[in-house]
């Protein structure tokens, strides 16, 4: 495709390298310091994993993690289902209504998080909805829907319509066609969407902070409260674990998304 070799320049390459360095410096620092034996995080003594052990044994942390995982699983599930249905329904919608509908679907990503947080809090209080893990799940589902939607939509758009026609041609009823052909072909998009939704739910802070009630502490909220108390090595180790988990998940999602964009390439003469 477009490889603008003529624009090569050492300045660009240098800035790019520095940018990458800039992006990873804090992450690397965090990880390195998490292995520091010392109580005072930024003064290095020896390598040790004791803070990791402390984290894994901390009851509060484990509870918060459990909450985060439950919310993420539930929100991802509902959001992915709704997003899949929406993507399937959006296919035949004409341009005008489609712009509006997709605008609505993307709204949670466009509106600043703090605004969404405040608005949801007001809603929950107005209708008397108790603030707890359920309110958090509902709030997470809101922004998980667009995260799940885009990869699915992308995969659906790349789907060769003649495959569906072929399935009908070969006596598959609409229901069987959906389950035997359409859904399997969409699976990479659905998985990528679900992963993205899951990761964003796990890591969300601002919205969760506003709509969580007592006892609904998620991991980010717990981390925040620890940071408020001061920089401690546990926070460090916990953050490093969180980081690692995120990187693993996003790597998988990235591979899936790449395979989707590969299928978009026009088929050359076979």
């Amino acid at each position, binding site marked *: 495709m477009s490889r603008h070799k003529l624009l090569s320049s050492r300045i660009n390459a240098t800035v790019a390298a520095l940018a990458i360095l800039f992006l990873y410096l804090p992450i690397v620092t965090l990880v390195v310091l998490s292995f520091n034996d010392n109580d005072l995080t930024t003064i290095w003594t020896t390598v040790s994993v004791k803070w990791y052990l402390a984290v894994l044994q901390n009851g509060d942390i484990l509870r918060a993690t459990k909450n985060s995982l439950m919310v993420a699983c539930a929100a991802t599930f509902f959001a992915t289902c709704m997003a899949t249905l929406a993507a399937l329904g959006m296919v035949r919608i004409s341009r005008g209504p489609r712009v509006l509908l997709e605008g609505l679907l993307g709204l949670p990503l466009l509106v600043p998080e703090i605004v969404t947080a405040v608005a949801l809090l007001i809603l929950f209080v107005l209708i008397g909805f108790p603030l707890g893990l359920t309110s958090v799940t509902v709030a997470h589902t809101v922004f998980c829907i667009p995260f799940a939607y885009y990869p699915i939509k992308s995969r659906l758009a790349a789907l060769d319509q*003649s495959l569906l026609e072929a399935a009908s041609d070969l006596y598959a009823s609409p229901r069987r066609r959906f389950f035997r052909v359409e859904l399997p*072909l969409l699976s990479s998009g659905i998985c990528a969407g679900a992963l993205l939704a899951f990761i964003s739910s796990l890591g969300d802070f601002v919205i969760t902070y506003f709509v969580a009630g007592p006892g609904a502490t998620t991991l980010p909220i717990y981390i925040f409260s620890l940071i408020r108390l001061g920089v401690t090595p546990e926070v460090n180790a916990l953050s490093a674990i969180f980081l690692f988990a995120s990187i693993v998940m996003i790597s998988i999602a990235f591979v899936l998304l790449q395979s989707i964009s590969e299928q978009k390439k026009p088929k050359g003469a076979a």
Partner: protein
Amino acid sequence: MNGVAIDFARVSKTYPGASLPALNGVSLSIRQNEFFTLLGPSGCGKTTLLRMIGGFDYPDSGDVTLSGIKIGRTPPHLRRVNTVFQSYALFPHMTVAQNIGFALEMLNRPRDEVRRRVDEVMGLLRLDGLGDRHADQLSGGQQQRVALGRALAPKPEVLLLDEPLSALDLKLRKAMQVELKRLQAQTGITFVFVTHDQDEALTMSDRIAVMQSGVIRQVGRPDEIYERPADLFVAEFIGDANFLESTCCARSGADGEFQLDGQGDQAPWIKVDKVGHVAVGQKAVLMIRPERVRVVAGAGAALTGRVFETIYSGSSRMVHAKLPNGTLLRARLDGLPVSGALPDEVGFYMDPAALTAFVR
């Protein structure tokens, strides 16, 4: 005479947003057990007609009948018709065997019957041993045969082929043409074939329908279409032809005589058999195929011309000549030994039976 497999009765369709209809009152009968081709340039409606047999498009008006039953709006999965798609449309998440057996699976056939039939079809199409492969592990020709096998496995009444050979290279294409013809004869299934390649159509078909802009121009056997095109479009579309502008100067029974335009009153009179409805004084276009134009000695010939180019291509020579009125005439000389160049001024003889007159 075979029964009618598919019948179109005054079928019309206009796609939303289009200014012209894709199909305009088309009527056509396709017989059982025949190899029928829909031929025409892009946009003529041949693919739309095909898709209507398959159930992927519905007519706005008119009836489509399959073996006597009206199938106008029946969805594809309820029609005993199968399609070989131009892009093959092989299911990427299934193996070759699963692709071929898909239809039988959808028809809820017992598993061992499915397996037997899949093996049978793979043998028929020389796909043995490829059962466990996926589409992206096959060559173009193999993919094409899998698409074919997949459509043949459930033994449909009609097989639709939408330009299935267009992606193949020339040699493979020729080989597949022979194979398809053989398969059709062997299975007895009605084949409806869509192509824009007239050589392909002439080679393979029992009958051809030539289409243009949503209407059928002519239906007939390949030799009928070639020798006796119904109108100027068909004449121009099929094969190579000379077109001579002329005026009718005499009629006698079914025959007539014409004078070429632009040569004044001294122009020779050309006899044409079976001219149809051409009146004396009416303008007409005379058509003759290059291989029917005979080159004779210049002296004494009624029609003469100046040779300005001779193109040699192995088995034949194409002589390009200019007639006194400026018109180009091409004559193809087959199999004659190359015995020296042609004289500048040559005579032409055109058999009255080889000429066709068209009114514009």
